[in-house]
C-alpha cells in the first residue's frame, strides 16, 4: 500500500537514477570498489588543499617515509630522487589519471556507440564496412598499436585520448552491435517504427536506454583498463611529459634506484593498482546487482 503510494508520487528522473545507484550497497564487493574510487576522486579534487607540498617543489632527496624536516613539515611517504614529496605527487598524479582515463573512455564510448547503433540497426553495407574495419583494428595486439601511434604522433594527453579512442571504439562497437541486434526485434521498436519515428529517434531513445545495463558494467571495466594503459605508457616513457606527476612515469623514473630506495617506486605502484581494483570491484558489484533483478 505504502509502496504504491510512493510509486504514484512519480519521483523525478534524477531521484530514480539515484535510487537505482544506491542498490550498489547490496553488494559489499561493489561498495568497497566504490569506496576506493571515491577516496581517489576526493584526493584528486582536494589535492590543492590537502597536499602538504607543491608537487614539483624540491627538498631533500631520497628520504625514507616519515622523514621530518623541522620548519617545512613531515614527508609521510618520503621524497624521491629529486627531493619531491611523494605523497603530494601521488595526489596530484591522481588528478592526471582521473582526468584522462574517464575522458578517453567517454570518447571511445561516444564513437563506439555511434558505430554500434549504426551497424546493428541499419545492417546492410554499413554493418559490413564497420564490422570489417573493427576486425582489422582489433587484430592488432593493443599495446603494439598504442606504442606505434604514440611514437609516431608524439606523447601528449590529447594523443593518448585519441589513441585509446581509436583502439577501444571497435570493441565497444561489437558489444553495442550485439545488444542492438537483440533489441531491434522488440515490440516497442516495432511500435516506434509504425508511429513513423526517425531511425535516429529509435536508435537513441528506444534502443540505447535499454542497452545501458551491460554497457555501464563494461564502461567500469574499461576505465580500469585505460588507467592501466596510461600507467603503462608512462612507465614505458611514452606518457605525459615531465615534470608533472604521472603514476606510471614516477615508477619509470625511480625504478633504477628501487634496490636502495624502494619506497619511491612502490607507492605509485600501490596507488595505481588500488584505483584499478576499485573500478574492477565496482564492475563486479554492478554485474551482481543487475543480475539480481
Amino acid at each position: 500500500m505504502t509502496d504504491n503510494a510512493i510509486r504514484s508520487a512519480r519521483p523525478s528522473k534524477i531521484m530514480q537514477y539515484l535510487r537505482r545507484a544506491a542498490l550498489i550497497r547490496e553488494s559489499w564487493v561493489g561498495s568497497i570498489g566504490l569506496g576506493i574510487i571515491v577516496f581517489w576522486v576526493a584526493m584528486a579534487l582536494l589535492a590543492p588543499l590537502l597536499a602538504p607540498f607543491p608537487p614539483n617543489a624540491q627538498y631533500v632527496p631520497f628520504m625514507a617515509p616519515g622523514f621530518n624536516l623541522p620548519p617545512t613539515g613531515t614527508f609521510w611517504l618520503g621524497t624521491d630522487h629529486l627531493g619531491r614529496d611523494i605523497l603530494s605527487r601521488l595526489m596530484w598524479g591522481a588528478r592526471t589519471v582521473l582526468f584522462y582515463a574517464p575522458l578517453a573512455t567517454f570518447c571511445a564510448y561516444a564513437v563506439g556507440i555511434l558505430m554500434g547503433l549504426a551497424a546493428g540497426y541499419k545492417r546492410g553495407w554499413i554493418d559490413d564496412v564497420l564490422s570489417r574495419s573493427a576486425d582489422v583494428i582489433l587484430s592488432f595486439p593493443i599495446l603494439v598499436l598504442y606504442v606505434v601511434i604514440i611514437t609516431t604522433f608524439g606523447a601528449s594527453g590529447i594523443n593518448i585520448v585519441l589513441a585509446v579512442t581509436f583502439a577501444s571504439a571497435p570493441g565497444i562497437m561489437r558489444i553495442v552491435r550485439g545488444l542492438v541486434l537483440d533489441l531491434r526485434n522488440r515490440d516497442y521498436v516495432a511500435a516506434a517504427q509504425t508511429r513513423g519515428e526517425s531511425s535516429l529517434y529509435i536508435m537513441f531513445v528506444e534502443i540505447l536506454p535499454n542497452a545501458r545495463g551491460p554497457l555501464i558494467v563494461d564502461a567500469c571495466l574499461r576505465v580500469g583498463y585505460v588507467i592501466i594503459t596510461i600507467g603503462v605508457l608512462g612507465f614505458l616513457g611514452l606518457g605525459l611529459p615531465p615534470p608533472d606527476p604521472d603514476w606510471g612515469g614516477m615508477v619509470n623514473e625511480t625504478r633504477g634506484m628501487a634496490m636502495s630506495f624502494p619506497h619511491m617506486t612502490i607507492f605509485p605502484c600501490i596507488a595505481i593498482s588500488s584505483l584499478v581494483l576499485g573500478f574492477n570491484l565496482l564492475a563486479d558489484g554492478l554485474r551482481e546487482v543487475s543480475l539480481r533483478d
Partner: protein
Amino acid sequence: MVIFLAKRVGYMLLTMLVVSILLFLLLEVNGESVAVKVLGPYTSIEQRNIWLENNGYFRPLYVRYFDWLFGIATGDFGQSIRFKAPVSDILWDRLGNTAILGAATYAIMVPVSLTLGVLAGMKEGSALDRTISLTSIGTTSVPEFASAVLLAFIFVFTLGWLPGTSAMSGGFDPVQLILPVLVLFLYGFGYLVRMTRASMAEVMQTPYIRTAILKGLPYRQVILRHALRNALIAPFTVIMLQINWLLSGVIVVEFFFAYKGFGALLLEASLNQDIYMIQACAMVAVFVAVTTQTIADIGYTYLNPRIRLGG
C-alpha cells in the same frame, strides 16, 4: 568444410593486406620524413634527395607500396636504421626468445587457470567460487609493471633469491625466466579463470548434467566425463585469443627485465623511429594474432558439435 577453411584463410589474408596498407601509409607516405629518419636530422636536402633517388622513393606511392609488400612477402624487411643490420637477422632471433617466454607462461597459466575456473564454476556462489573470483579480480587489477616492481622487491631485493634482470648475457638461464613468467601469469590468468568459470557454470545448469546427477553417477564422474567436455570449448577460444594479449604483455615485461625479446625490440624500434623495424614487428605481431584467431575460429567450429557446417 573446404569452403569454410578457404573463407577463413582468405579473410585472414585480407586483414593482413589492410593492415599492411595502414602501416605503409602511417610510416612511409612522406618520403622526405623517411629520409630524415634514415639519414638523421643534420643532413642536407641534396644528400636526402640522392638517398631518396637511390632507394626509389620518387616512384608513385602505389608502386612503392607493392615493391615493399613484395619484399615483406619474400622475407626481405629492409635494413634496420637502429641496428645497422638487415631487419630479418635480428627479428627472428628476438621472436624465438619471446616464443620461449610465451611458451613458459602458457605452460603454467593454462593448467592453473583451467583448474581454478572449473573448481569455481562447479558450485556457483560457493565460498571457493567467491575466493577464486575475487583473487582473479585482484591480480588482474595490478598492472604488469606494478607486479614486476613488487615481485622484484620481494624476491630480488629482500630475499635475494632471484636475479632482477633477464638479459641472458651469460647464455640461456632458466632461473632468469622465473620473474618475467610470473608477472605475465599473474596479470593474465584472471581473465582465463573467469571465462572458464562462466562456461563451467553454464554447463552445470544444463538438463543433461542434472540427469547425470539424478541417475546416481558419482559427482567426480559427472564433472570429469560429462561437464568438462562441453565446458572447455569456450576457454579453448580464449586461450588462443590470449596470444594477442601476450604480445602486448611482453612489451612491458621484456622492457622491465631487459629480456632480449620481440616486445623490447618493438619498443626500441618505435622509440628510435626505426621505421623498417617497426613495420616488420607490427606485421609479424598482426600475423601471429590473426593466425591464432583463425585457428581459434576453426577449432571452435570443429570442437562444438552444435555447429554444423553448411558451407
